[in-house]
């Protein structure tokens, strides 16, 4: 589904990832582990097609992402810093992403409500994002990615702010999303739930 070979990424002036290879089959769940500073965020962002690699190619279904930017629509990314629009409510954030992806506004509203409910933030659906706690915001970010229902889901530390109860909810939704999943994490609990673990060394 998603693969790359001999991928290299530059960040902050130096090559932070080099010679990386990965193959993710459809529906496979891969945990990307490594300490912070090892380039997980940069790697995920590159895999999502949002950053150009300095060497190598990212392939989606065998097609080069660089040559077919439309394939980006097959990937959804949960940012480490959430990337939510501060002037919108939780529901609006999800709706905006859906509409940006081409869905009809009423369908977007319905889907957003459903996914927010699943992530246990529907009580805050009409609150501005900046009024939510860190954990709640993170769940909204996850909801946003999930709502897009893309074949590939990339998640950067999606449970960092969650307490025990909510962590389970988030992980459950991510793991049961159905598509391929690449999740960058510190948390061994997450790694255990995945099919495969890839270690990144700085």
């Amino acid at each position, binding site marked *: 589904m998603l693969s790359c070979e001999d991928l290299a990424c530059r*960040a902050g002036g130096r090559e932070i990832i080099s010679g990386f290879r990965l193959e993710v089959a459809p529906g496979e769940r891969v945990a990307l582990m490594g300490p912070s500073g090892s380039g997980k*965020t*940069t790697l995920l*962002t590159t895999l*999502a097609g*949002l*950053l*150009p690699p300095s060497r190598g190619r990212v392939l989606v279904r065998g097609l080069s992402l660089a040559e077919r930017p439309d394939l*980006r*629509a097959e990937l*959804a*990314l949960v*940012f*480490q*810093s959430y*990337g*939510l*629009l*501060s*002037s*919108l409510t939780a529901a*609006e954030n999800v*709706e*905006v*992403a859906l*509409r*940006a*992806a*081409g869905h009809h*506004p*009423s369908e977007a*509203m319905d889907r957003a409500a459903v996914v927010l409910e699943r992530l246990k933030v529907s009580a805050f659906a009409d609150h*501005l*994002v*900046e*009024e939510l706690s*860190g954990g709640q*915001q993170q769940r909204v970010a996850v909801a*946003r990615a999930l709502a*897009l229902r893309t074949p590939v889901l990339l998640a950067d530390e999606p449970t960092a702010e969650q307490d025990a109860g909510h962590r389970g909810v988030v992980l459950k939704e991510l793991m049961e999303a159905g598509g391929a999943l690449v999740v960058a994490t510190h948390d061994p609990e997450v790694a255990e739930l995945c099919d495969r673990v890839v270690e990144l060394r700085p």
Partner: protein
Amino acid sequence: MILRGLWERRTLSLIVLIIAIIPVASAAVGPIYAAASRTTVVREVLRAAPAEARGWRYTTSGDVGAGVAAFTRGVDFLHPPVYGIETQGLLAAEDMNIPLIWQEGQCAHLRMIEGRCPQAPLEVIVSEAFGDKMGKKVTFANIVTELGGAAAELTVVGVYRPISHGDPFWFGRGMFTTVEGAKGDQRRAEPFFVTRETSSAITLVGSKRNWTNYAILGIDLAKVEGEDLETIAAMQAGAVALGRQTQAAVFSRLDDVIKTMRAQAGTLSVPTYVVIGQLVALAWLLLFQTVGDLVRARSQEIALARLRGHSLARVWRFALTEPLLLLALAFPLGLLAGRAAADLMIGALLPGVPLTVPATAPLAGAAALAGGLVAAVASAWRTARRPVTEEWRRTPRRTRPGWVIDAVVLALVGLGLVELLTAGVISDASGQRAGALAVPALLALALALLARRLLPALVRAFFGLTRRRGGLGAFLALRQVARGTVTAGSIVILATAFGLATFAVCAWTATIGNYAETARFHLGAPSVIEVTPVRPHELAEAVRKADPSALVAAPVVRVPGSVQMVATDPIRFTSVAYWDADLAAGRQIADATGLIRAPAMPRAWLTGDRVRFTVNHPSLRQDLAVRLMMTVSVPSRIGPIVVPVAYLTGTRSVREWNLPPACRTERCELRALRGELDYLSIAEPAPDPTSEVFGVTIAKLEIRQDGVWREVDAGLTRSSRWTGEGEASQDGLRLDVSDLTESSIRMATFPEELPAIVTGVPGRSPVPGLDGLNAAGVKAAAPTWAAPGLTGTGAIVDLEYADRIAYGLHSRARFEVWVTEGQAARITEALTAQGLGVLSVTHLADLQARFAGEGPGLALLLLLVSALAAAVLALGRTVLALYSSARRRRYELAALAASGAGLRSLRAALLVEQLITVGAGMLTGLGAGMLAARVALERIPQFAEPPTTPPLPFEIAPGPVALLVGGGVLVSVVAAVVVSEVLLRGIQVDRLREAQA
């Protein structure tokens, strides 16, 4: 470390610096501009003043050099003194006192018709009135070669003509005759010019033994400045004292000028400072917002300092140093910028005026900066007091704008508006109106505060719509506007600045229109040529020769008074003068002038040396006699001259009497006849008054000229030509003389009340008449709200009537020729060719410029220029704030782009957000400005002396307002597009590299 911090936030620091420079600069501009305006006022008033009001003439019989030096000590705005000497010489032959003058550099101001300028002692030059003496020798009864010697003989070596009558060189003493080459006129005593050495070559005898030394001290208009006003006043006061204390006498008509200058300067200061105050307040607003941004940008570092436990003093110092440093830097830079800006403004608006920087300018700049100080301290306070933990919340809580502040400000604004528009805080007449200039800012601020509450609510109303359909752009933009932090501040500043600008444009166009209308009616015609005084019929004749078509020029005589009088030829007037039928109840000028025309009527001219009356009367008692008197008007004399022509006793009398000498060469006019009963016996107790009426019939009237008797056609048999206590019949003019009534009868060349075009309500007041004797009443044949040539209550009458009523010409009468557009040069030439002396030519534009150059006009100009600048600034700041806010959201917008939002949606979002914010601000400002115009326009000061007529139209020209709006819209759209593009470039996906701090 401070510098590193400033560099780190260099964009914001630079913006703060620029925005701090602005209030300092604007505050500094005020006093500089005011000083320059005062200079303009002083110079313009002096320029418009007559020559004898533009300086002093210092005369003394002693040492004039020392006296002048003392008088002018420390003064630098005078021309170098022009010295002269003067005395009187008695020309025995003509029995005339002739001034003998030498003035330094006199020859340059005289044109020699014949001969040359005097060079040696005992040489003189004479005016054309004495042209016959060219080449001959003249002697004076009181001038001898030496004491006890023979009469000095002075040789006439030339005949001069003055180059210009209004030349300030002569200090306007009216030394020269007004009509050159006047024939038959008694020779005016025009001066003989001598050389300086002549005074030592001759000796004066008689009552006046000494030459008078004088010096003409003219004020140099290129050097005098506004601040010299008080010096001039002091010198004038000193001049008066000098006259009392020493043997020097100083002449000047500066008193009126000084009064005018003071009044105008007075009308300048208050409006100017109101304008500057508003600008500074606006700049404070800007500064408040921006310095706040700067301090908030350091909030993280300030929080760290508090965390580390630095003392409160240190934390404050930490928070304040950057903004204070920038403010301190802004002060000198702002002063320099203000000076440069003032330089530009003065160069453009008040050409020729030098730039001086009064001490108040830096003070004003410092006061303006105080606003920035307040802003810095307030922001630092808030930041230093905020719980530190707030800083580290992932997204800080937003504070809602307080209701309290809004309510307080609105209350103050409301109070202020009520005060300004009804009673008036500043009770002085011009001051009260100057307060009206503050109305737009107050109103705009109030509406702005309302708008910043309303806009989010209004935008929210469309949330549902954009949620259900439409593009992402509108969806995002609306929410950003409603919930964003930039909106409120931007609206306030844009609305206030635009309100001010809109009002300024409205006020300016309306005022220009008022100036034009006022100038039209005050001047009367497109161009007005003022000429030296001549007889009305000579003026009319000259105009007729210069313009045979009668379509281009009209003779006009203006006499000031409590009821002004304009006397003119109605037919010519129709083609030349300004008129507004709407102000005259729909009556056109031709109709109006038709109503005031004097019908042709023969007048009884008397030219000769003797008059003879043939009078028939019933036999008079022995003790009674009738004294018959004739009233004549004698040219060049003001007032009726009563000539007792006959003393009647017995039955038929033929009496003769001498006419006044002037009538020998000039045309005198028979105006009226009067009879008085006289009691001959004195010794007896006075007899009872008799009620008898004696009819005295004047059968014939004859005049002797050059020895020949000729009958005068005085209409003695035509009853229509006489009115009064008597009647004309075929036997002659009968005058009923009695003891009880005044028996007079006058030539009916004019009615009791002249038909006139009238402005105001003269009531019973008479017009001054050409002679200034207030003898003529007027009847409002054509009333109007505004008439050409009248600046107040007044009447326009036929010059013919005015001439018939008048006895002589008053010195305050102004003689003008009104010409149509573009004809001034031609007519002026034609008039001078005929010998008329032209004093000045005033065009409509000159008068308009004069109004615009008065105090209030200058203040309004300042308002216009500065308000437009403020609007540009506010727009710039808003665009900048929108840009910065969007820039801070780069990361999340990039994330949105990553989710698939196209560039088009993002661009739309950015564009719409900016356009709504800027549009709302501008619209509010526009509304506020127009409302303010509606409410306050008629109260703002426009004239130094508000005219009583014409009624001011206060028409706001839509063009400039549309231009302002259109320009604003254009700039906003362009800026929005540019900013969106720049932002979009920044929202490239590789922004995602940066993790949000």
